[in-house]
């Protein structure tokens, strides 16, 4: 499986994502940086939109990248069922492109929040969660100023009904409370999927939780997100 990590001007978690996938160490699974204007994108089996500040977050986070050449290709790939993962700014791009519903607004405290969070897996039936079990708690960091997921009431009802809420902020025991919701997101949402389930966006950074040495909590829970792509193969 060849995974493309798309680099936009202003991406800054792209190399982390490439390295995280490389370290999963599964034979046949490779990752490669792909410039957002590249024609190569359609040759890949999965796509990751990494975190960062694409195009300097001008207008709104993700809004300019959402009009880049990569997104029209990713739209077609998503229609064909190719797995697409948007992490942080990547999630913002997917929302701004209309590939995922809703909006990502300024955090409720109007401050950039950088913290380790616990998120509960709500849907283990996506290409990025299929080796998890529903209710499993993953510890991954967030780092963003515009990550307060918002969906109008009707959209939120649809997301719940169609089982498209993939991650919710929770405490370490898996209880989704106001206190465990660091940015005031609607319903504690940390990640959602499209109708097909193959496009997933989340605000926490799994690529920063792949090496216990780099986590104050020795968390490598983010590996689960990438290992899921191969159905759990690899260590």
């Amino acid at each position, binding site marked *: 499986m060849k995974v493309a990590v798309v680099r936009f001007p202003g991406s800054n978690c792209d190399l982390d994502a490439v390295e995280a996938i490389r370290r999963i160490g599964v034979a046949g699974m490779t990752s490669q940086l792909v410039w957002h204007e590249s024609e190569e994108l359609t040759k890949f089996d999965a796509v990751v939109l990494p975190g960062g500040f694409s195009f300097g977050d001008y*207008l709104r986070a993700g809004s300019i990248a959402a009009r880049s050449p990569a997104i029209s290709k990713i739209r077609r790939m998503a229609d064909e069922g190719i797995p697409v993962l948007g992490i942080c700014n990547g999630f913002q791009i997917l929302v701004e492109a209309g590939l995922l519903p809703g*909006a990502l607004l300024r955090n409720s405290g109007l401050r950039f929040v950088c913290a380790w969070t616990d998120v509960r897996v709500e849907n283990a039936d996506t290409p990025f969660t299929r080796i998890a079990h529903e209710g499993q708690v993953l510890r991954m960091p967030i780092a963003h100023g515009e990550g307060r997921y918002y969906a109008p009431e009707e*959209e939120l009802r649809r997301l719940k009904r169609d089982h498209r809420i993939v991650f919710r902020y929770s405490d370490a025991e898996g209880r989704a409370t106001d206190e465990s919701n660091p940015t005031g997101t609607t319903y504690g949402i940390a990640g959602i999927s499209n109708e097909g389930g193959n496009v997933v966006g989340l605000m926490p950074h799994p690529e920063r939780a792949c090496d216990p040495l780099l986590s104050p909590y020795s968390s490598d829970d983010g590996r689960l997100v990438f290992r899921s792509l191969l159905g759990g193969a690899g260590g």
Partner: protein
Amino acid sequence: MRSIRAGKFLRVEVVASDGEEAKRVVVQMCNELRIFNPAAHSLTVEVGRIAA
């Protein structure tokens, strides 16, 4: 206090035959380019100074 408004605006300069056409062009541009996210934002277009 009767009302409060917070946010930011974009000033767009267009060439049009009159204010109505200018407004139509800007609304179309904002919709096509998704300048605003309809899930969370609304769009208000006001015609400002019309240059000769």
